[in-house]
């Protein structure tokens, strides 16, 4: 970009913030006043943002892993996560779980739900790769992308159908399309209070559990990719597919593994979101998918740490905008920031443009 173009851009951006900012809730004196009056609210919102961000990050990893390996934006990934939520809810229904069931009896169903939803999503993702994407591996870029959009619709309709199976899952909402209530199983015991610390910050066992599981999954994935032979092979395929073949890596196998891991993470995210928000709906994959995809792009698509960072940033931004700006304008703010960052760093926050030397 030429310097004068950059200047024009600055002016346009500033103009829009001045003009649209107040409509979209940007009232700086009020925000400062709010924060000063109740600083604990700020910390509570930051926590909410971190947790939602961690869940977004887990979904974003699925986008970034697949993109890194085969340069496909897997638009069906968000909907896969939604199906994970339904699988988890079904397990809850089978165990007869209801709101506030004692933790002792809820642990087993939660673990089973984690295995079932992660397993189902991993399997579905692998099947999708095999039949919807692999046949188009050498087709023009747009073909598998359209294929992914098609799969996304199929998944959404599956979710809608699943929501209608009332006799099968007793605790679901009334109509097929209605949001379903997910049993509230994690205790809402306030951690700071239990420790005898006097604060106004809400931080419950439920928050902590979701956060720990989400962060654990991310750390686990990072270790897998950095340390294990299969993880290194994934990186090798992402960096140079031809060279990976030459050193004897079975590229097809690695692609399957990538879809397997991405799918399992989406399934786990589906369960986590159910446990955290206590409601799931068949359209939630679309919005979550969009945000996760944004997170992946924001962090630098193809970059694992970037996806995590992007997810947490978007979570924080949304939570703070919900509280201090205007919840109706949250998406506008989030995507505005995305546009701004991409204008100045087109490859994302951590996306590297490492050129191979000749």
């Amino acid at each position, binding site marked *: 970009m030429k310097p004068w173009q950059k200047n024009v851009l600055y002016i346009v951006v500033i103009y829009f913030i001045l003009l649209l900012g107040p409509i979209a809730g940007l009232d700086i004196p009020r925000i400062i006043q709010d924060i000063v009056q109740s600083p604990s609210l700020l910390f509570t919102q930051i926590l909410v943002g971190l947790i939602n961000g961690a869940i977004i990050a887990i979904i974003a990893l699925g986008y970034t892993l697949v993109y890194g390996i085969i340069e496909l934006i897997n638009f069906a990934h968000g909907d896969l996560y939604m199906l994970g939520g339904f699988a988890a809810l079904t397990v809850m229904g089978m165990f007869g779980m209801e709101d506030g069931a004692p933790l002792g009896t809820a642990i087993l169903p939660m673990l089973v739900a984690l295995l079932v939803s992660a397993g189902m999503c991993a399997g579905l993702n692998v099947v999708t790769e095999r039949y919807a994407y692999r046949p188009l591996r050498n087709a023009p870029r747009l073909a598998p992308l359209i294929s992914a959009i098609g799969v996304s619709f199929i998944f959404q309709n599956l979710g809608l159908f699943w929501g209608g199976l009332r006799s099968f899952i007793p605790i679901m909402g009334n109509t097929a399309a209605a949001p379903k209530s997910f049993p509230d199983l994690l205790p809402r015991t306030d951690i700071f209070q239990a420790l005898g610390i006097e604060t106004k910050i809400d931080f419950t066992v439920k928050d902590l559990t979701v956060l720990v599981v989400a962060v654990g999954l991310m750390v686990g994935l990072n270790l897998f990719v950095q340390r294990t032979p299969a993880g*290194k092979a994934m990186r090798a395929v992402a960096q140079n597919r031809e*060279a990976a073949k030459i050193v004897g890596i079975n590229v097809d196998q690695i692609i399957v593994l990538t879809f397997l891991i991405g799918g399992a993470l989406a399934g786990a995210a589906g369960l986590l979101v159910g446990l955290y928000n206590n409601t799931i709906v068949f359209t939630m994959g679309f919005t979550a998918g969009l945000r996760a995809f944004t997170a992946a792009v924001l962090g630098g698509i193809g970059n694992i740490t970037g996806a995590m960072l992007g997810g947490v940033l978007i979570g924080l931004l949304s939570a703070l905008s919900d509280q201090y700006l205007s919840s109706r304008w949250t998406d506008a703010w989030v995507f505005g920031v995305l546009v701004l960052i991409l204008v100045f760093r087109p490859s994302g926050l951590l996306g590297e443009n490492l050129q191979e030397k000749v």
Partner: protein
Amino acid sequence: MLELIDVHTYYGNIQALKGINLSVSPGEVVTLIGSNGAGKTTTLRTIQGLLRPRQGKVLFEDRELNVVSTEEIVRLGIAQSPEGRMIFPRMTVLENLEMGAFQRRDSTGIKTDMEHVFSLFPRLKERISQKGGTLSGGEQQMLAIGRALMARPRLLLLDEPSMGLAPMLVSQIFSIIQEISAEGMTILLVEQNARMALTVANRGYVLQTGEIVLSGDAKELQVNETVRKAYLGEE
């Protein structure tokens, strides 16, 4: 050890190899010279199983490679330092070398081979934790050869190791190739730098638009009229 019998390879509908016959015996250094687009890289890709011949056979120790997967070909003992080096840019030198040994499970053997690679290329040891993409061209070439050696191959395919390197580095790389050959490695060397290639090779083939037009002892090729004019730039 390696034999290509009447190999025809295509890129889509474009015929790149028009019936190649070529053989490499154990312990030999054989070079394949020719100008750009003659089919040198295609030949190596066909041997490695990255491209499949539409006609003809690739035999390695009497085993037909036409239907064997690339992973299996690596396991059978063919490793390659590809054209353009193709190192993994965001992996460290150490990780790049480890990837070369991807098919192997003998950790002690891998360790000895790693030491051996470092003794051939002390520069790589100095750069061990540096990312591959930040190395200089010469270092990347050393890494590509080192990575291929990490597979402990019995046949080493080298695709244009001199490409884009300064003359001093070229002679350094070639003296290392001689060193590797002196240790008993069988090498098939593809080069545009015919002069250098023919000095290190035992035998040579001259490839022209997908066909072998000349073959013979490296020393004979060096003095051959056609080769001198077309590939050594002599009058």
